[in-house]
């Protein structure tokens, strides 16, 4: 990005591009004393051209590059792509595979929210230990991933037509044990942080985004729901097994950093409930339908699939031309939308330099997702 001119009354600070907490991006901040007058998000440092790469891969090969968008939340990202491929090619998915997909997606969501939660607490500067707690606790989930898929990260487990393997023996009991353990840990988190007056002071009333602005600026995910907008793709347009599962869409009306954190916190609780429901009620049957290794598309078909990832709504829009590769894949990434909201926040609310890290990490940015 070409840097815009600096007005004489402000000073410009460049934050990044080397790891402003997590990932590579540059945030330019125009400050007038302690007050931030303007935020400019200079993204693109991790642009890999995933949309172009996908045009050069067959439908099934595309699963691997697209997972690299968000490593903490690969299941949801891969599901967006795989569902779009299934719709474009007209592939049916067995019921049991849909339930397994939902299970892994919820585990991925908890994994990702834990990371976001830990980072936001780290940003307040009070609790260096909490980031380590969340990192240790996600091991429980990573072990489950390993058992089921063979990999702890980026498991490429979803394929057009279902999932790669059935649940191993005793897996449902292990899921229930993990849920029980995590529930107990989250009670500790709540008592130690959210109820803590010091933590609350740094987060309440900081970076307020009103309901109207959240809609107008195209916010998504916990940022949108933290401003009191009741939108969640899982409920609005049920995919995988979400139509049969019982869960609540969490909203908070304050629109500040604490509200966004609380949304994530309560969403983790909902995800744990979903995991338990799936472990109890998963139907039997096959887990995949047979799909050729290089499926051929019909010309002129397009399919837009929407999924709710941990950061918000992901859209994958596939266009075909009759070949074995997609003609074009458009990815509507959630972080790109939230980064625009972050850019505008300094104009909507009084933002101090000291609060900027908390605000940035309350939108849970994932720059690889932003740049694609």
């Amino acid at each position: 990005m070409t840097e815009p001119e600096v007005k004489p009354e402000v000073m410009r600070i460049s934050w990044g591009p080397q790891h402003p907490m997590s990932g590579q991006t540059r945030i330019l901040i125009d400050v007038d004393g302690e007050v931030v007058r303007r935020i400019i998000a200079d993204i693109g440092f991790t642009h890999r051209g995933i949309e172009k790469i996908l045009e050069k891969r067959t439908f099934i090969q595309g699963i691997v590059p697209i997972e690299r968008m968000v490593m903490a939340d690969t299941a949801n990202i891969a599901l967006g792509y795989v569902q779009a491929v299934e719709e474009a090619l007209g592939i049916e998915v067995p019921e049991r595979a849909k339930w397994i997909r939902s299970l892994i997606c919820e585990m991925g969501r908890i994994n990702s929210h834990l990371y976001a939660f830990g980072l936001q607490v780290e940003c307040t500067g009070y609790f260096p230990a909490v980031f380590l707690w969340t990192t240790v606790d996600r091991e429980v989930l990573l072990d489950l991933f390993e058992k089921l898929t063979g990999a702890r990260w980026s498991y490429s487990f979803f394929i057009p037509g279902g999932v790669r393997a059935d649940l191993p023996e005793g897996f449902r009991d292990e899921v229930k044990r993990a849920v029980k353990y995590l529930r107990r840990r989250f009670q500790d988190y709540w008592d130690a942080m959210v109820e803590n007056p010091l933590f609350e002071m740094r987060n309440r009333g900081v970076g307020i985004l009103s309901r109207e602005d959240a809609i107008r600026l195209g916010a998504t995910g916990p940022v949108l729901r933290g401003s009191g907008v009741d939108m969640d793709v899982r409920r609005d347009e049920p995919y995988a097994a979400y139509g049969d599962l019982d869960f609540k869409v969490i909203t908070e009306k304050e629109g500040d950093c604490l509200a966004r954190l609380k949304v994530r916190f309560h969403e983790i609780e909902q995800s744990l409930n979903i995991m338990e429901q799936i472990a109890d009620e998963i139907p039997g049957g096959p887990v995949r339908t047979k799909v050729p290794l290089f499926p051929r598309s019909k010309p002129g078909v397009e399919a837009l699939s929407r999924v709710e990832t941990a950061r918000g709504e992901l859209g994958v829009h596939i266009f075909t031309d009759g070949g074995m590769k997609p003609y074009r894949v458009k990815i509507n990434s959630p972080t790109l939308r939230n980064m625009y909201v972050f850019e505008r926040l300094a104009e909507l609310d009084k933002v101090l330099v000291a609060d900027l890290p908390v605000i940035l990490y309350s939108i849970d940015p994932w720059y690889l997702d932003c740049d694609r």
Partner: protein
Amino acid sequence: MPARSEEELVEELKREHPELLVEAVIHRSKRVSIVAKREKILELARLLRDKYGFTHPVSAGAVDYIKEGRMQMIYYLMNPESRFMLMLRVDLPRDNPRMPSMTQVWEAMSFHEREAWEMFGIDFEGHPNLTHLLLPPDWRGGYPLRKDFKGEGVTP
């Protein structure tokens, strides 16, 4: 006023504003496409936002149909009440892809239009800050997402 369903929206647009549209179709439940006339797109966009409640911009992107000599710009929009995905499309000639910027209607389309500008070379008239978003500022390698992009001479 309750939000219109997919069918009601398409019916009403076809009945009351046929001069703004090329076509309006429902692909499946919750997926609606409206192809706008290029010279009327700003008028149609304002109508969608103010009268039909599509206040929530989702994304925007383009597709390069090289054999047909056209590009299609797609805006993804949503009404927070009815929550189906509206795709507002406009066809642009490939040799001169220009159109008015939708940032005049939905401010948040800014990032998405900057991306389409650098990736496809679509010129958005009236965009407040049409600079590189993802590519480096001194990029001279052409338009990466166009179908005739060869990837040669990409380093400045």
